[in-house]
């Protein structure tokens, strides 16, 4: 018995160490290598209403069409009936002729009057039509101008997006591939361009709302904010300012620009969204674009 124990003791320490190691290893394995709580469950945020809120739209300006001035047509000429006198036929016939001529004259005059009034009506209608046409043309011109401006802005933004894309692709192609890499990068090309597209969309939307008038004149004024997004495009919580411009009204204006840009355009595909849900936004409001 004693001899057996001694033999055991020699191997004991080794065995104990080994068991300990295995236990520690398994313990670590259990805690770290099993995924738990790493991914944000894909959920939707819902607001519960018991009645539909009434939104009062500002009353649209409806222009009443100007009341058309319509003159009443002149009353038909009253045909006087002269008492039938006993006279000589010729005289009667002459008188009849004259009466007929008078009648004709009056009828012609009445017709002329009607024609004149009709002409006036038509002229008025024409004028109104022309005015409406003018207005329409002016409105169209305005819309066209707006469209052109929008197009210009979009073009400029596309240019910036192009340059940013090229820079990014250049950047990606220059970095050496690391041996231990995640699956996403191995899948490659389409993901990174989708990502760039959404980043450009977000940049464009926020840019529209940055009020640089409150940021002074120094060209290198810089701000950095960190935001966390929900799949709806809204911020999960208040944005966090990592670098201030040192101008209080500028900090506030940029924070307002971020809030005003909600909901931000985010991808619906959850894996891509998870890469965009935490963002760092770097602003240089006085940089020359």
């Amino acid at each position, binding site marked *: 018995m004693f001899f057996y124990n001694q033999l055991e003791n020699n191997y004991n320490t080794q065995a104990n160490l080994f068991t300990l190691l295995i236990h520690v*290893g398994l313990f670590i394995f259990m805690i770290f290598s099993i995924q738990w709580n790493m991914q944000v469950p894909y959920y939707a945020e819902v607001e519960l209403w018991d009645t539909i809120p009434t939104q*009062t739209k500002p009353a649209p300006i409806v222009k009443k069409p100007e009341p058309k001035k319509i003159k009443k047509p002149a009353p038909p000429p009253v045909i006087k009936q002269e008492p039938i006198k006993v006279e000589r036929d010729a005289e009667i016939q002459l008188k009849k002729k004259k009466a007929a001529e008078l009648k004709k004259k009056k009828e012609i005059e009445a017709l002329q009057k009607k024609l004149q009034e009709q002409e006036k009506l038509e002229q008025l209608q024409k004028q109104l039509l022309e005015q409406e046409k003018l207005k329409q043309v002016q409105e169209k011109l305005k819309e066209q101008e707006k469209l052109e401006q929008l197009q210009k802005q979009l073009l400029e933004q596309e240019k910036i997006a192009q340059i940013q894309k090229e820079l990014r692709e250049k950047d990606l192609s220059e970095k050496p591939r690391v041996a231990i890499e*995640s699956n996403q990068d191995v899948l490659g090309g389409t993901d990174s361009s989708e990502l760039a597209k959404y980043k450009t969309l977000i940049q464009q939307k926020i840019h529209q709302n940055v*009020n640089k008038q*409150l940021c002074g*004149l120094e060209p290198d004024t810089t701000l950095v904010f960190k935001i966390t997004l929900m799949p709806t495009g809204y911020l999960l919580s208040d944005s966090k300012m990592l670098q201030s411009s040192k101008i209080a009204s500028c900090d506030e204006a940029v924070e307002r620009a971020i809030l*005003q840009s909600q909901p931000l355009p985010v991808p619906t595909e959850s894996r891509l969204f998870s890469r965009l849900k935490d963002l760092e*936004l770097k602003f240089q409001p006085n940089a020359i*674009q």
Partner: protein
Amino acid sequence: MRDFLKFFIILFFGMQIQHAAAIETIEILGGKANQIPIAVTPFDEQTLAAQKQPQKINQIIENDLIRSGLFDILNTGGVSSYPRNADEVNYSNWSAIQAQFLILGQIVSDTKSNTMEVKWSLVDIYKQNVVLSLVLKGRPSQYRAIAHKISDTVYEKLTGTKGVFHTKIAFVKKKAKDSYALYVSDYDGFNQRAIVKSKKPIISPRWSPNGEKIAYVSFEKEKPVIYIQNLVSGQRILLANFKGNNSAPAWSPDSKKLAIVLTYSANSQIYIINEDGTDIKQLIRTYAINTEPAWAPNGEEIFYVSDRGGSGQIYKINIKTLETKRVTYEGNNNLSPSLSPDGKLLLFISQKDRKYRVALQNLLNNQYLTLTEGPHDESPLFSPNGHMILFTYKDYGKTSKIGTVSINGLTKTPINVGSETILESTWGPITN
């Protein structure tokens, strides 16, 4: 055993990297000259004073903020109910009209003590909280002054710069061929009163930076001489009556000296004189005409107009070293310089194609920008906070008038002080 261990370690480190994603960065360069959308509801007023006022308190505040050019005042007509205090605000009503901020208030008057109390709040519609909530008390005669105070407070809170809605301006009115007067009024033209009346022209009024005096050029002695009027005592002193013409007074930033133009010994040249009329020194002496001096806010340089290059252009001279540099190069003539309170912007009249327009030059990068169309704009001056410009303008065939243009060029508003001819004007300092 050891290999087994190594394998484990590499395995779980590898899994770590799969989940450590880098945070994406987005760069946003530049921005827009946006106006802050703000709504001002009619205040809940139950005072007799309000009924006699030509404008209600919310209208005065709206006009102030519109004139500054930094705000987009929203029409509150479509909103169903007006809140009287911050607790009554229905945020969805206001976000529906795209408002970012809301000003609301309540006025209660006490007829016994003849005072009125104005409780007002500035509310942030996005964050759904109250930014400011204050009480102002005063007499009914201070109705407009209280409205301007509210505008100033909101302006300072949202833009970080002091508001000028409480300040005064002075201007020269020509009532008839032999009737001129120098008036002082609120910056928006209300409450005007004459402080100098003359049968001969008055030109070039200039308010001292400390607000106590106004210098002006008068022709009452049959030639231009410079007077300084003390606004507190009502007295005036004759600053400059040298041989020849005395004109174009310009106060130094500390209100102790003035730069003036004399034709004493030759053509127009620039001199510096103490504000009590003593110790006159010639600053510039060249063969060309040198006129229209304007001090830089640091008190070290004077900008002026000279025709030494063949046309009127703006130069600057260092008072101590006398080093001179030309500043403007655009257009045919550049006249009437003045400096922004921070010294970074030069304001002047640029003449091109026979039109005189208000222009700005950024002295840091020499970028140049015109703010008005003309055809005949004159005498531009900055507001005391540098955000607005006061100038005189004349439309073809009409009398000359004064008005303001916001520094971003977005808002031009006339100042209505009557139908007579309004000549030059000057802006008094911030006093709160």
